[in-house]
């Protein structure tokens, strides 16, 4: 099946897990940039009923903790920030009865149109990365916080699904800046467009750019032997890449069984394109 188009631009994120300290600055930056309201009710609900948090908390970018499972001095930990993978083959798109989510624009970002979504949550069920979250409550901004909302991002109401969109609005504004400066909006230089999480990361673990543009850093990075993608064997063809020199991290990235061979350090898994 190749129902999804290839685009001349392919926005990609490369996250260097070995650089990530798990500080969570990316998550905070994302919440602020994308007008995600604090959710005390949700946290109470989770505490009270023990619901799995991944389905309850509104957060587009979650940092997971990984462990190599070894006891004692051999123990090792890693942190894995997980935005939406902007899959090349997004299962969320094909299941949506409302065409509220689509992958139809140059750049390959999977869109989510909130007023069109009626909250069936098929997409959430289909997403293998739990990248999507549901608004169980109307957002409530504490006094004064509504003055800090990002005017470039719409506020979502109760009853719709939302997810990371690579801070798509920042791309639109970067294109506008290029147009006014008389440059080509479809050939943005490195870092003209950069999502909030990548900008906020204090260790510079998140790289962002067009993976098809040789002038962007990510072009090289995705071809590193230490680069892998999450659950690559599902064939979702994510646009988010991870890097780690630690083999156990790469193995966990695709759920390899203990005695299974691989993954071979070979770059992007050959599923590209």
């Amino acid at each position: 099946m190749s129902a999804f188009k290839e685009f001349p631009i392919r926005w990609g994120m490369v996250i260097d897990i070995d650089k990530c300290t798990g500080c969570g600055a990316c998550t905070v930056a994302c919440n602020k940039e994308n007008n995600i309201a604090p959710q005390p009710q949700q946290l109470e609900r989770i505490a009270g009923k023990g619901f799995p948090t991944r389905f309850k908390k509104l957060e587009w970018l979650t940092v997971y903790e990984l462990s190599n499972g070894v006891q004692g001095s051999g123990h090792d930990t890693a942190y894995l920030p997980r935005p939406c993978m902007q899959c090349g083959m997004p299962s969320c798109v094909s299941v949506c009865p409302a065409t509220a989510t689509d992958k139809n624009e140059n750049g390959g970002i999977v869109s989510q149109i909130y007023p069109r979504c009626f909250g069936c949550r098929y997409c959430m069920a289909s997403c293998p990365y739990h990248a999507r979250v549901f608004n169980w409550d109307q957002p409530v901004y504490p006094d004064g916080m509504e003055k800090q909302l990002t005017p470039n991002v719409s506020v979502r109401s109760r009853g719709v699904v939302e997810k990371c969109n690579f801070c798509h609005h920042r791309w639109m504004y970067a294109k506008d800046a290029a147009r006014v400066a008389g440059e080509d909006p479809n050939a943005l230089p490195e870092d003209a467009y950069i999502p909030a999480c990548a900008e906020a990361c204090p260790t510079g673990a998140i790289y962002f750019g067009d993976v098809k543009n040789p002038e962007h850093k990510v072009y090289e990075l995705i071809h590193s032997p230490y680069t892998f993608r999450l659950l690559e064997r599902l064939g979702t063809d994510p646009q988010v890449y991870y890097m780690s020199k630690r083999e156990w991290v790469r193995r966990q990235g695709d759920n390899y069984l203990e005695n299974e061979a691989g993954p071979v350090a070979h770059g992007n898994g050959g599923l590209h394109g």
Partner: protein
Amino acid sequence: MVKKTSSSGGALPFFVGFVAMLFVGWWAFPRMLFSEVQQPIRFSHVVHVEEQEMACEDCHFLNEDGSFNGIPSTASCAECHSDVLGEDPDEAKFVEQYVNEEKEVEWLVYQYQPDNVFFSHAAHQGKDCTTCHPDVAKSDTPPTYYQNKLTDYSNGGYKIVFGRGVGVDPAYSRGTMKMWECERCHAENGQSNACYVCHR
């Protein structure tokens, strides 16, 4: 056989009722649905464009970062209107109530779009403003702003005849652009109609 006779008197009452319903549906109801609002200041484009020979871009320009300046702030109007220049009572009102008080005017935007719409003026630079906006440059008194009481959006300003916005009367604003209008123009010009081109 019993001959059927109308107990209500034939066609006339039907006709009267029919006309009454048309009147309610086409005339009375739309008036109930929209409130008519006037701009806080009677701003004359004619004075600025024709008499002072200003260009649209003198006030409505693109910023260096690519964003659109939109309606000028009180401070930029005050570059000329720091004092009352003419005879117009609305100009005096503007200087007294807004320039001297350092307050922004709450202008009514006929084309105000919902929160989730992304529109780039930079991308549409080549288009004539009146493709989407009413031709306010020729208006001495800004058009009446018809505000939908349910949605708060401008209706916009289509002259309401027989319950529907009819034609595009230059004296009235064209109102908020509808999604199909954006989509049609994009399609006709070979531009993408992907969701995220216009939504955020």
